[in-house]
Every structure is written in structure tokens, then in C-alpha cells.
């Protein structure tokens, strides 16, 4: 719920590919890098454009969508509830590995801990209880070991290769 009569401050963000984003202050402050920008430049004018040279428009749009929803969840006291899990599951469902990677890189650069934890955990879940072959195929990882080298690694960690679910 937005409070009436309170002018909302808008933060301007400019991406590497030159797009300008207008973001509500509480959402933009989720980005540690933006927050520290304003902490360090306390007298920055209201229309200051914060440059984000390492982020392009597509992942930024995705990140804003995520943070906006989470800021609202917190405001409504819904943090940690099923609603949030549902949103997160829905959010991640249609993302390709490429999109995931871009989102992670951007979230890492912008320093958004909550989102980074969520994204990395998503990747971890895609790894869990999967065979090496499945993980390679799923993420498109090229096996650059010779068969002998691979055998040596497998032998070194023999105990870790028992009981893998061939998903």
C-alpha cells in the first residue's frame, strides 16, 4: 500500500546499453551499489542518474521486477510466507540458463544479497542429486578431460560417485 500524500522519490539508473530506468526509491535501495552511491554522495541532486556500466537492460528489468515484489512482500508482512515462495518459483520457472547467468552476474554487481542467494540456490537445486552427464547436458558444460583424466578424478573421489540418481 502506498502512503497517500507522500511524494515518491524516483531513482534514475542507466544501463551499459544506454537505457534509462526510473525506479521507486525503496526498490533501488535494495541494490547495495545504488544505496552506497547515495550514502557517499549525500548531496546528490534528485535527478542524478546512477550509471551501471556492468548491467544491461534485460537483466536489470528482471531484477527490478524481483526486488519490487520483495519490497512489497516485506511491507505487507508477507516475507517468508508461501506467497513469496510461489512468486519465486513462478519467477524462475521460465528463465533459461543464459538468463539466469545474466541475472546472477547483475545481482552480484548490484550487490543484492537476498536475490543472489535465491538465484545461486536455484542453480544449486538444478545440480542436486544429478549425474555428471545430466549436469553437463543441462548447463551445456564441455567436458575437456581426456577419458584417462576423467577416470583419475572419479577415482580420487570414488565415494562421491556412489548412488547418483540418473535423472
Amino acid at each position, binding site marked *: 500500500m502506498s502512503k497517500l500524500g507522500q511524494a515518491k522519490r524516483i531513482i534514475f539508473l542507466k544501463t551499459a546499453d544506454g537505457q534509462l530506468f526510473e525506479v521507486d526509491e525503496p526498490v533501488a535501495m535494495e541494490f547495495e551499489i545504488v544505496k552506497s552511491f547515495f550514502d557517499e554522495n549525500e548531496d546528490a541532486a534528485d535527478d542524478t542518474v546512477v550509471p551501471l556500466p556492468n548491467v544491461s537492460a*534485460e537483466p536489470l*528489468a*528482471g531484477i*527490478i*521486477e524481483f526486488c519490487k515484489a520483495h519490497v512489497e512482500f516485506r511491507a505487507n*508482512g508477507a516475507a517468508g510466507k508461501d506467497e513469496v515462495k510461489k512468486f519465486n518459483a513462478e519467477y524462475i520457472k*521460465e*528463465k*533459461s*540458463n*543464459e*538468463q*539466469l*547467468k545474466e541475472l*546472477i*552476474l547483475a545481482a*552480484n554487481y548490484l550487490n543484492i544479497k537476498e536475490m*543472489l*542467494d535465491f538465484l*545461486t*540456490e536455484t*542453480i*544449486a*537445486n538444478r*545440480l*542436486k*542429486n544429478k549425474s*555428471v552427464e545430466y*549436469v*553437463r*547436458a*543441462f*548447463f*551445456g*558444460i*564441455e*567436458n*575437456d*578431460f581426456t577419458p584417462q583424466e*576423467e577416470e583419475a*578424478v*572419479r577415482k580420487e*573421489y570414488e*565415494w*562421491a*560417485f556412489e*548412488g*547418483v*540418481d540418473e535423472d
Partner: protein
Amino acid sequence: MGYSGCDSMENRIDNLDRISALPDEILHHILSFVSLKQAVRTSVLSKSWKETWHTCPILVLENHTHRDIARVKEVLKFMEQTLLNRHMEMISLRKLMISLSWFWDDKVAALVDRCVCFAIGSNVKELKLRFPLLWGRYNLPQIVFCAKSINVLELDHCTLSRPRIGVQLSLRKLCLVGVYVDDQMIENLFARCPLIEYLTIESSKGFKSLELFSLRKLHEVEISSNAELKKVEINALNVHSVTITNMETCVINVACCKNLKCLVLSDLSITDDWLCNVISDFSLLQFLSIIYCHKLRSLKISGPSLKELVIIGCDLVEVKLETPNLSIFRFHGHPISFTSNAMALSETDLYIYGYDDDIQVDIQVLVKYIELLAKFNQCSEVLNLEHCTGAVVIVPREWRQILHPPLCGVKHLNLLIDDDLFDFTIPQLVDSLLWLSPHIETISMSFPLGHRHEYSFQFLYKEQLIHKGENPSCCQSLPISCWQNCLKGVKIEHTATYFARPASVDRFSLERKTSEKRTYEERFYFHDNIWDELNNLHLNLRNKFSYLFDGDK
């Protein structure tokens, strides 16, 4: 906004390597979420992944997948070797976690000792040791309390003993669960942790007194279920949050925490006077929760900043609030006398005991209940009611002419019923809730019937008839015309939640995968013959779960 396109699972298996291109730091973060075994397995993916594992500074061993003690030792030996490798590579460890639950002997203890010592040798920052063993506790090496690198220390089922040399520690977070620690050690420990911010002590023994003085950075304290603890004194100016639970014989002094924002008191033998005095000192307090404190009778709470108040299961007779900024009030308990100057509650939760143990509700009980509800009218937009059977919200038609609807000011009414909905129908409940709160915007009701069902109703009204002088006879006693004549339509959303076994059970993973949560949803919009439609809705639901009703007969 966001990405377009909807890749199916197949499309996602693309041929370009996306994940390996992430910086090692992030890959290490990813590996910290998977088991040690899974993390190790990634080293065979490719050369770069092998390197990623070899430099990983986060090592997590949880043993729920190990079937015997020989395997536990094998994995611990592997962990020891890995720690040694990190040490040789001069990699500073970010985190070591070892969590063992079933198997234990002296050799296991010796292996854990060596892992802990190697980790400290690699300047570990976060150390978590969990041994929820049935037989006793792990004797923590004294070196842990000399390790300056550790910021975060979480110990479960350990015995702490006092080190011979006392150095200043840089602990920021300390969490002790089920530990044994004597008074001397506790005193000595906190004297050496000036930077501590988060402290949890739970189910621990060996000490009778806990005095937290002059810890300037202390932010959050949680103390619970320490059976031998007789005295807790917290005197730390910057503490924001204090939780004290399940220590009935403990004397508590938190009066000096003037900047407290959040206070949770549960299962304590605190008295009315104690609470009244303490609360009046906390002018910044925003959240207060009082749970199962059975000595309390009469609560007088004044708090200029208090935003949320939770009172559960106390034997209270009276609650007086002077909390002008209170926004959320949750109360579970026996009927009370209630006065408040909080006029802008955004949400109220009420679970009043003793009103609906039976399906038949006595009319005097009903009248009392409606009087109590009326106290929350006007001051709360959202009212959540919880009941066993829901019987008390069914107001018989003959009484509706006599009683006054108690909740004319409420906009959203949510009803949670704990028992299966056998005795009432959805239209009966809707009908009565609409009497309790005429012209309400939304109603939701949640009840079990085979699955957990949640129905939410959004009501659309015609222009009010009252101005046209067409007020029908059934509404004459009401201040505004009743819903029966001005209901235009209703939007309904039904969500059912249930648990089912997952389709494919991974037989190798012993992680608990017993059942998973599933949901289904349906939506309706009714504008003609609303009551017939609601009856049909209920019949469909009842038919779907008819087996439950058959069993009943």
C-alpha cells in the same frame, strides 16, 4: 517487464556453457548450497569446475546421507584432507560446517578435532558444528575460543571449556544450542567478545547466571529453554531485539535496554507489575509479543511507538492499551475486557477460546461474542477470526432482527476454521458473515475438508437503495440497506492445498522427501441467482469429498 518467451525444459538444455562462465566466487556460493558429495562431484564436470572445487573456501558436511560409522569416518577423513589442501594452498576458509547426527565414537571425535584445528589454521570465518547426539556432547577444542578469525560461531551439543589464554575475539554472531558451559566460562567469554551483535543461547546447561554488560554492538538476543538459568540481566544500550522464552524460574532484568524495538516474552513467570514497569521504559518499542505467561492477569500497555502486539494463551481478564500507533493486534485467549485508544489498526487477529467447542451455540454466548467483536469495529480494516468449528459466526436469522451487526466498519473479514467443515455449508457461512459485516468488500474463509480450502469472495454492490426509500422490510432495523438487495455480483477464488507423495521418489537420496505440497485453483463470477450458485458450489465440494461424509455416518 522482464523476459519474454517461455522456454520449456527442452529449450533450456542449450549447447552453450553458461554457468561455468560465472566468477569463482559465485560458483563457490552455489556449491555451498549442495552436499559435500555433490560439490565434490562437480570437479569431474570439466577442468574449470575441478579448479573451482579445489579453491572452494566453503566446506559443508551434513551426514544425513551416511549409512554407517565407517562411512562417516571416510567422509571426515576426506574433509580433513580437503582442509589440509586448502591450508597448503593458503586459501582462507570462509566457512566450515560439520553436522553429524547418529554415529559417534572417539575416532570420530578425533577427526572432528583435526578438522576444526585445520580450519582455524586457515583462518576460518564461520564455524558451525552440530552434533545433536543422544549420548552427550562434543568436547570443543579450547583453540576455538582463541581463534581471532572467527566471526560466526554456531555450536550444537558441545561442551565448552575455558582456554588458558584469553585473547580478544572478533565474534559477531554466537549461537549456542544444547551446550554445556559453566558460569565462569560464560562470564569470561562475554568479557572477550566486545564486537558481538547476535547472540542465541538455547537448551543449554551448566550456568545459572547470564549477565550481558557493556556489549555496545549487541543487537539481537535470544535466550530460551535454559533450564538451570536463574538470572538473566541484559544491560546493553543498543540492543534492538530481545527474545526470552521457556524459563519459568528465571529472574529477568532487561530494563536498561532503552533502545529496544522488539520484545518477545514466552513461557515466563512475569507479573503484571513487572511487565507494566518494563514496557513503560521502552519508548521505542515497536513489536511486543507475550505468549503463555500464566501469571499475568491484567495488562496495561502504553507504548507510543508500538506497532504490533501479540498476546497468545495467557490467562488474562483485562487488556488496556494506550498505543496510539498500533497497527496489528493478534489475540488468542479467553474472553477479556478490552479497551484501546488505537484507532488505526490495519489488521486484527482474534482467536477467542471457549466459544465454539460445540456446534450448538448458546444465545447468551453469542451475544457476548458479538459484543466483543463490536469493540474491534471501526478501529480495524482487516479482521481475522479463527475458530474450531465456526459455529459462533452463524447467527440465527431470528436474532439478526434484534442484534446489531457488530462489524459495520470492517472492510476485509477472514475466517479460519480449524475443524473439518461438516456441519455448515459455504452459503450459510457467507450469509452470516455478510450479516456480521454488511457491505464488506471481501470475505475469505479457510477450512479443511479433505484438503485445506481457501475461498475468497469479492463482493460488488449496486447503488445503495436507502436513498430511494425502497428499503425493504428485512433491512429496516439496519443503519444501511442489507446486502440481500444490493448485491450485484461476487467473484470467487478457490484454492485447495494438499500434500501428496512426489511422483518419482529418489531412492538414493535419504533427504526427507516424504510428501510435497500441491495446490489447485478455480475461479468463478456469479451475478444471477448468487445463492443457488453458491449452493451448487458447496454441493460440488461436498460431492468431491463425499467419502468423508460417508465415514461420518
